[in-house]
């Protein structure tokens, strides 16, 4: 066991793991199928489990080794810091040779060292904890990411203006991604789209989507919030985000079913939706515009139609039309918008880990050091350990006898 810990603790092992992760990440980020315009992953990538390279066994193993290496390095580091603070310097401490007329204590004081007790002098002693704190932060970060990945839950949904849905309702959410211990069902959150503007102009920013949504979790009254792609809206542990997809929605009043919003998908000037009519036959609603459907200046006149049973029927708002075995009515042509929701219980841990890492890195930026003065007559005037100790030794060598200590 001790042998394993010793091996994990070596700087060579830590470097090897870091290099492995850096090279792996550098290559994986450039794999064609991980890019925005995703190509299909080749079969060999699937065979090696590299379709999703940053959740592949090779990457997870690298992170696990990094955790083990960091844990082994952290183990015992606290005791070493305490030893240093007591003035027990390691073999690698730099020696300042005694010389006639040179005062090591005065020299060290001029280098910002101050006497602690007896022959021990220290500079920024609290900063000696920097390395230990940084390693603890790295452990917290890796553990928190593991928790976050395990419990993370996200999914997409669409809403037409005036439409409401409960995310836990079957079929309400699609494209769901969840960790192995995330709740089985989507959250019990009711979301209603009150209004939607695909081209809201906010000063300084290009026109973009903005919605007013009502969020109601459990039995509370809910709250109406403004949502755009700059920021999500929270309802308990769930955050709802405005997504990019949107389109036209046809609200149709179907006898026995009530008003239904049919989301049309398409690009350019045409959008359509395949449905099954109340009689169980396939049908297609289609909208054709004069201009592009995403033209901020407007679509121009729209032509609505229903393709069913090999026949095309022109539709008009308010006018009844044959749908299945009964009559339905187009209530309105409006817009639908896409949203996502996310639950990330590990996030506070991740940010805590980052904060601890940064605190450690901040402390490391201070040139902390500990010096132990030699006895009168010793060959060594003082031994110094810490960042910049070698520089300090060269300054000591350069310094003439009784000359003012230079910084």
């Amino acid at each position, binding site marked *: 066991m001790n042998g394993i810990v010793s091996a994990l603790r070596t700087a060579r092992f830590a470097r090897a793991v870091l290099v492995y*992760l850096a090279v792996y990440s550098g290559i994986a980020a450039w794999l064609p199928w991980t890019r925005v315009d995703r190509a299909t992953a080749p079969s060999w990538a699937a065979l090696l489990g590299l379709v999703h390279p940053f959740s592949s066994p090779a990457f997870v193993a690298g992170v696990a080794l990094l955790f083990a290496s960091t844990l082994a390095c952290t183990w015992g580091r606290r005791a070493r810091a305490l030893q240093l603070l007591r003035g027990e310097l390691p073999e690698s401490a730099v020696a300042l040779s005694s010389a006639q007329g040179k005062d090591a204590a005065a020299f060290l004081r001029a280098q910002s060292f101050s006497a602690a007790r007896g022959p021990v002098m220290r500079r920024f002693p609290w900063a000696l904890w920097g390395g230990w704190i940084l390693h603890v932060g790295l452990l917290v970060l890796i553990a928190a990411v593991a928790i976050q990945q395990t419990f993370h839950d996200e999914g997409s949904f669409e809403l037409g203006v005036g439409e409401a849905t409960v995310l836990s309702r079957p079929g309400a959410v699609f494209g769901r991604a969840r960790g192995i211990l995330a709740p089985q069902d989507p959250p019990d959150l009711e979301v209603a789209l009150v209004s939607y503007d695909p081209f809201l102009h906010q000063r300084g920013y290009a026109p973009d*989507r903005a919605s007013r949504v009502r969020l109601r979790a459990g039995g509370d009254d809910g709250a109406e919030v403004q949502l755009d792609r700059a920021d999500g809206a929270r309802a308990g542990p769930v955050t709802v985000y405005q997504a990019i997809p949107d389109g036209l929605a046809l609200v149709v009043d179907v006898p026995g079913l009530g008003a239904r919003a049919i989301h049309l998908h398409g690009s350019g000037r045409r959008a359509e939706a395949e449905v099954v009519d109340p009689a169980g036959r396939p049908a297609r609603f289609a909208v054709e515009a004069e201009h592009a459907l995403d033209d901020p200046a407007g679509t121009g006149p729209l032509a609505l139609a229903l393709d069913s049973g090999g026949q095309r029927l022109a539709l008009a708002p308010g006018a009844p039309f044959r749908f299945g075995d009964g009559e339905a009515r187009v209530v309105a042509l409006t817009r639908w918008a896409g949203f996502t929701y996310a639950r990330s219980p590990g996030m506070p841990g991740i940010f805590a880990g980052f904060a601890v890492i940064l605190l450690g890195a901040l402390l490391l930026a201070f040139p902390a050091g500990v010096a132990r003065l030699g006895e009168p007559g010793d060959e060594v005037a003082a031994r110094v350990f810490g960042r910049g100790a070698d520089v300090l030794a060269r300054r000591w060598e350069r310094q003439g006898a009784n000359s003012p200590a230079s910084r």
Partner: protein
Amino acid sequence: METVAFWTAVTAYAVSAAAFFGAFAFGKRRFGAVARWLAAAGLVPHAVAVGLRWAEVGHGPYNTRYEVLSADVLLLVAVYVGASAVAKGVLPLGAFVMPLAFLGMGWAVSTFGLRAEVPIIFKSYWLWLHIGFAKAFAACTLLAAGAAAGYLFRSRAPERLRWLPPAEDLDLYGHQFLLVAFLLLGVMIAAGSLWAHQSWGRYWGWDPIETSALVTWIAFAIILHFRVLHRWSGRRMAYLTFVGAAFMLVTVFVVAIAVPTIHNSYMVGR
């Protein structure tokens, strides 16, 4: 007003760069002090120019090449002036920083007249921190590279360029700048994660620039391990510092230019 402030800053930086060359050519420390003072004085109109543009366009300096590079230079000069106030030995690095600042302003002015709106996802306080720390990280890494170059000059010819601090001091400055750059890069990554989480509900997307920043952070960690654990210093550390600077340049400029991502406009402008 913005034009006047911008060109006043450019003039101050140009004269400062010339004064640093004079300090090197004639070995006059006084030239260096004047040059640093000019650099500090140039920061005031420069900040005014950046602030006026910010107020006019309604978003931070992260869209056009002018906005991006001008803010890069502002941070570079501010970090240099601040560092040289804390450690006097850093002052000669102005001979490396100020010509870069002048050239950066020259590149920036090529799109001075361009004004454009940014995507709505840029409306975030975390983005300010993300971008600000990215610029400060780049500035500290450039200063570390400057100190490493100074070290190599000074250690090869100790009798020449006596205006530079002793080689071992430059070695230590390089290390300190790298440490601070490591810290700033960490803050930049954390702020970027918070921004991504605020806008998209995910803190990490393995976008090429995100990954490149992470790889750079790991590379800096490896370099710092060599220094702290193996006591590497001097020539080897100077070359490793150049490697760190190369990683920074690849992340901040090369990947941003080569790969179309959300990061393009605010890293290299358009």
